């Protein structure tokens, strides 16, 4: 029997895709107006980022969704039903909530932390144990973590456990308040990638507060920009990047927003398979040289019989010898098919090359990527 206290077990009204609706929500603390007349619809299955400078009201807005803070005016509905018609504690048990590191309870081990909500709503122990194993696997931590304590874990590990805990009772909605804020940049990037692949599997409705515009662009499907308690612009990522509403949004995005936007594009959509010379390691040098001179290329891509990328042949001419020679370069910068354009762009600038070879699993060569195509991407986006 479906638990009637769970939000998603209520009859859906008006289309399931309008998961959370904020209707003219205002929050006043004494004299300060933290959130003003905010209306927005949060779509099901998407990651919605709330971003803005300190004091803009983004965290207040987040906390109003699970009633940690109650609105002064206005209403918030989930699947059409007002959250004020429900018991606050039951509401919170059906929504996942993740905050920064201090969210884990240090005096309980990982298992007990994750099992908290399922135990509260009365799951039987075997179901809970299976669920914990499943979740640890999902957040890529192995089973041995169940007995560890938060103080023994690294920041990245703690965040993963926090995420597992939030997902434990399988809520439809996940609220996240700067969860990766206290993590160093390298690990944060890895956590972002993990997070995105987890979301691909679980497809939850996520509301995510951040102050980092790069994080918002990388993770968000839609971005809501707030300032002084007001919603300034709310749209999907592309539109925000290419059509900022006003100077404030432009400033928030940064003058390098075109480059920031590149993080959304993958190499695989820009691979070309022409315009270069590809040869086998064992090919005769004269043949290689001839091919290169025909096509007017200084370098040739060298692969083996399994299409594995080995390096480059470079054409060298010296004054002493009119005959050109081939030299083999094996220390070559390559990019992965599934990585993003922003990284590729940086690598090109670093290497001083306007073209880089693209490889996939097992270092197999699949084509080349050209700087020119990246530039065209800028132009095309501006025109849209």
């Amino acid at each position: 029997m479906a638990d009637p206290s769970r939000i998603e077990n209520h009859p859906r009204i008006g289309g399931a895709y309008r998961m959370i609706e904020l209707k003219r929500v205002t929050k006043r603390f004494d004299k300060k107006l933290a959130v003003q007349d905010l209306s927005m619809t949060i779509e099901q299955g998407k990651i919605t980022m709330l971003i803005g400078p300190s004091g803009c009201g983004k965290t207040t807005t987040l906390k109003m969704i699970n009633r940690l803070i109650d609105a002064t005016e206005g209403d918030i509905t989930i699947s059409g039903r007002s959250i004020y018609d429900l018991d606050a504690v039951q509401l919170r048990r059906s929504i996942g909530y993740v905050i920064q590191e201090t969210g884990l309870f240090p005096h309980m081990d990982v298992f007990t932390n994750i099992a908290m909500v399922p135990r509260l709503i009365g799951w039987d122990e075997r179901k809970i144990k299976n669920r914990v194993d499943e979740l640890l696997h999902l957040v890529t931590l192995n089973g041995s973590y169940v007995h560890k304590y938060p103080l023994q874990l690294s920041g990245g590990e703690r965040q993963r456990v926090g995420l597992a805990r939030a997902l434990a009772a399988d809520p439809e909605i996940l609220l996240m308040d700067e969860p990766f804020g206290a993590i160093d940049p390298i690990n944060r990037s890895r956590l972002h990638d993990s997070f995105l692949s987890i979301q691909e599997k679980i497809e939850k409705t996520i509301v995510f507060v951040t102050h980092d515009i790069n994080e918002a662009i990388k993770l968000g499907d839609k971005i809501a920009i707030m300032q002084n308690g007001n919603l300034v612009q709310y749209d999907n990522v592309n539109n925000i990047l290419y059509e900022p509403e006003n100077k404030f949004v432009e400033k928030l995005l940064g003058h390098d927003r075109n480059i920031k936007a590149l993080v959304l594009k993958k190499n695989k959509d820009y691979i070309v398979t022409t315009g270069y010379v590809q040869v086998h390691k064992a090919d005769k040098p004269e043949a290689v040289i001839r091919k290169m001179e025909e096509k007017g290329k200084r370098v040739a891509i060298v692969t083996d019989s399994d299409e594995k990328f080995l390096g480059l042949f470079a054409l060298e001419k010296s004054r002493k010898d009119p005959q050109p020679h081939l030299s083999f370069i094996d220390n070559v910068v390559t990019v992965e098919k599934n990585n993003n354009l922003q990284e590729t762009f940086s690598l090109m600038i670093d290497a001083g090359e306007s073209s880089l070879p693209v490889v996939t699993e097992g270092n197999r060569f699949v084509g080349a990527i050209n700087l020119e195509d990246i530039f065209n991407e800028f132009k095309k986006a501006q025109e849209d």
Partner: protein
Amino acid sequence: MSIVAYVSENREQILALVGQHLILFSVSIFFTVIIGLAVAIAASNEKRRDLGRIILTITAAAQAVPSIAVVALVFLIVGIGMRPAIIALFFYSLVPIVFNATSGLMSIDTKTIEAARGIGLTDRQILWNIKFPMASPVIMAGIRSAATINVGTATVAAVIGGGGLGDLIFIGLKLNKNYIILTGALLTALIAIIVDTFLAIMERRVTPKGLKLGR
């Protein structure tokens, strides 16, 4: 006369005094812990931070009051005997418990409590499952401190007719007989050390495992 001789001759009376001493101690501590913790819980409520701060200031100042002063004041109001002694002990050992417990409960990171509320724990569940375990080292330290002071003050309570081993010390001082003084002094010291050591072990056992670790 040697102490050993004195003790063996007056075994029953001395045992009776030990018994009285222990009664004074245990009855007062029992009430102190219950009421002290109740006060601390009320005072540490996040919604009433100012109450908490007032209580902390009062108890902090009260810790400077000498024990006999409290005994004397209770004597003035209630009289002599075991009951006033227990009342005096109750009030005096209340202070460290309330101070430590309130301070410990209030010092828990508000973000942790917010996370607990955010995932759907009720206030009572937060108190028992989060606040108490996390504050338990400090609370236990307060109980231990209170207990030790209690045994000590129970010694002085003899002066208002509360009985207990303090009687031996007072009599010994008056009669100028060292072996009586020592019997009283050593026995009280022994009880105090036993209580303190026992509670020190409890302190370590009560601390949740997760809090003792670090990277």
